[in-house]
């Protein structure tokens, strides 16, 4: 569970920085940042499952 927390914190931090660089207004930046974070988390979980199934 702690590993997932680290992953989520990392994704939110990176997403917010990228969102702030790509959008002018605060609301749009936060919205894009959270979308980026959600996408990164989803891809990380998908890749983790793929690696788990390959290893099994």
């Amino acid at each position, binding site marked *: 569970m702690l*590993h997932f927390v*680290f992953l989520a914190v*990392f994704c939110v*931090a*990176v997403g*917010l*920085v990228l969102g*702030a*660089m790509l959008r002018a207004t*605060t609301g749009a930046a936060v919205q894009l940042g959270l979308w980026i974070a959600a996408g990164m988390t989803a891809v990380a979980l998908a890749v983790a499952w793929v690696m788990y199934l390959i290893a099994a």
Partner: protein
Amino acid sequence: MNSSQQDNPAPSSAAALEHASLPVFRTLAGCVMAWAFPGLGHVFLGRVQRGLLFGLIILGLFIGGLALEGKAYRPIAGEPLTYLAALGAAGVGVPFLLAHLGGFADGDIEASTYDYGNAFTLVAGLLNLLVVLDAFDVAAGRR
């Protein structure tokens, strides 16, 4: 085309060229400050809110990485990839130097969070390099 579009035409390449002649000192100072301390360049250029956000997040990532027993990469002779990693981590600027001078930058390879910490410190540096480019765009009037 309506009247508002006629009043405010889209930026032309000529207008973009005008930005190339912006004060060199302001641009250079903004970029150096953005590298030296995360967010400082944007504050200097008048984007205070964005600068504080960048500073909070990037410093948080870097300090969090060190707190997770990660290391701030340093170049090691004979290991070329460490040069790239050190270049990336050094993107966070003065905090990177302070971490090395203060002896906080070596990490603990036996800690379970060592790899997380490494990723945090490295990505903090890389993100700050992107922020430096963003500060350049701000100084050049593109944002």
